[in-house]
């Protein structure tokens, strides 16, 4: 029987959740035995070309590209997991939600103390437009499971993947359930 396929992505996050995944040490070998890695920054695979069983989403949605990637993941992954504080509530990037996008951009690029010569609003076509605020992933697509933490510990990630790959409901023990 084919191994379950695993995809990951990092949206508006810091890659800390991915680092934590790598932090599972020798269990990485078990992980490779357990799942096949599909589209992920870890293998640099760019596109989905077959159905994936488990998708791990790190980071919230801060710009239109994040939304696009997240929707792709939802479309291609049977189970989608919101991983880490940023995917769950926007995390550190969501601090801008308390200010408002216009004020935020103007302060950064036009009015801030470090702006010279009146400043300019970055407007290259390659830069995705920012959303009015940072959205948690579950406010953009249907999310099946949440794995909290900043980052979730390697143990928590391992337990979650292990459960999902063997068709069980992930259930974190008290020690592994952390919001920070």
């Amino acid at each position, binding site marked *: 029987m084919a191994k379950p396929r695993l995809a990951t992505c990092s949206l508006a996050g810091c890659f800390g959740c991915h680092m934590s995944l790598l932090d599972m040490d020798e269990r990485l070998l078990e992980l490779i035995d357990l799942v096949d890695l599909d589209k992920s920054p870890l293998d640099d695979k760019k596109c989905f070309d077959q159905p994936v069983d488990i998708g791990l989403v790190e980071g919230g949605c801060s710009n*239109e590209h994040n939304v696009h990637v997240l929707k792709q993941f939802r479309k291609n992954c049977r189970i989608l997991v919101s991983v880490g504080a940023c995917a769950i509530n926007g995390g550190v990037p969501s601090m801008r939600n308390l200010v408002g996008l216009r004020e935020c951009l*103007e302060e950064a690029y036009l009015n801030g103390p470090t702006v010279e010569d009146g400043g300019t609003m970055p407007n290259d076509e390659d830069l995705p437009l920012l959303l009015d605020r940072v*959205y948690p992933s579950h406010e953009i697509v249907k999310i099946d499971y949440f794995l909290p933490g900043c980052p979730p510990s390697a143990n928590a990630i391992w337990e979650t993947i292990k459960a999902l790959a063997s068709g069980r409901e992930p259930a974190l023990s008290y020690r592994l359930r952390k919001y920070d």
Partner: protein
Amino acid sequence: MMGTGARELREDPAAARPEDAVLIDRIVAEFGRDRTRLMDIVQAVQHRWGRVSAASVRAIAQSLGIHAVEVEDMVSFYSFFSRERKGRFHVRLSKTPVSLMKGAAKVAQAFAAASGAAIGTASPDGEFTIEWTSDIGMADQEPSALINGTVVTALSPSDARSIIAALRAAPADVDPPVFRAPDPRVAALPQARVASHIMKAGPIIFQRRRRGDGVRAALGLSPESIIQEIIKAKLRGRGGAGFPTGLKWKFCRKSPGQQHYLICNADEGEPGTFKDRVLLTEAPDVVFDGMTIAANALGAQSGLVYLRGEYAYLWKTLQTVLENRRRLGLLGSNICGCEGFDFDVRIQLGAGAYVCGEESALIESLEGKRGAPRDRPPFPTERGYLQQPTAVDNVESFACVARIMENGSDWFASFGTRESTGTKLLSVSGDCAHPGIYEVPFGITVNELLDQVGAADAEFVQMAGPSGQCVAPKDFGRRIAYEDLATGGSVMVFGPGRDVLEVASLFTEFFIHESCGWCAPCRVGTTLLGRGLDKILKHRGTLEDVTALEELANTVTRMSRCGLGQTAANPILTTMRNFPQVYEARLLPYQFVPAVTLEEALAVAVKVQGREPVDETEPV
């Protein structure tokens, strides 16, 4: 905002003038430097300066010898007190499903266009502020508004234009009106009139009797026998909850205390209700008769009427009624010549908070605090106003008490049903030919009522206001009675073409605005209910959203602290139950739909950065 500027934001040098502090001290002294009279003190300040500034809060606190934070806590709670100065004329339009179907939105636009003030703001010249407010108790003559606290009714867009023109031409306020007196410039408007619309006077409340008859009839009875008569008559509270009045009095009477208090709840805030307004306009003496009888039964020497702020225009006439009663020996010392029977009544004006209709919140408000309900036990009958045994009864209940004394409990109980004796005043409004007051015996069916009011084509009826239920035609055979469809008197009728969900949404908005904030499930829950319903209303909901909304609604109902939160989900729950097809018709056939579209989420960036989103087609 983050960090900075707390001082600058809150400091208010304009109102820190020493002469104002002297005046404020004089106001505080007028109310005996009594902290429990904070409602009156703050109302007087609001009246005099058109706002209650931070400096005024400090001055009041200093004069009372309390902390400013305690005054702020109370002032910031009530809708009718404002920190900022409003326009010279402050127009507050009643926003209810009924006012909107009678054209309130067009009237609001006309006010806005004529005054130059966008709705929710003041006009640039500072002359007018146009705002929406919760139902002001004029459902039979909507669209209506309060202008500087005075009621104007049956407004059309052309009325709005002529009112703005007349007020613009009115003299500037050289001398602000005396506290509790209406603004004469507004009172002079032809629209400043309130009709009573008694469409059907029944056999109990509106019969003509001599003032004081009930009081005199009760003099022959011992206090216990009075209570026994009320119990025998099976009178139940007319505010809607239906607690047996006699039993409440019995508990109150036997509670030990230095004094017993009596409170008449005239904070008629349930949208769609206006029967207490009409009762206090057309038959105030029968209400005061009832209070005086209750005082006799409870041994209470002080009675308080908590009159909702929206009815401030009644204050002066009610004072005259009280004066007359004192003159006639029906109030004051030795009432009706009866040695030791001393009782008097004070009227306390509210300040725009629906929750104060809840008896323990009302008591808090009477004590000069924010209107947050209390936890029970202790019940007010044990420890109520000033921690003394207190009976709080509805205006109409007191009227019934007087009639029971005049005609006997058997006579009273001969009307209505076994469990709901007597008659009920119904305030009927909405899509019907004859809106107004109907006194009907309990047990009347919805259909029978709809025939009387001229609403044969009604498609749904909101019974007992937002906290009651939305009744579908299949249930029009049900009876209006405590044991079936209970109501405090609000009956809103909706005819063909009206949208059940729009109505439920307005009612949910009402609860969001009126939640006191004390407990988490109601404070946060009401806002979340609004979000959930809004999503469905905007055709972005799924079946999962409906399920989640229902679960949330049930949690709010179960976990909230007082009746407000426990009924705040009723507009949603009762429409879900009675009109599931209306929800289904709006749902999208997907598992998940986000609350916002990508276009909406990008709108700000498109504006700020001046370009369109990048087209990201799926790479093959």
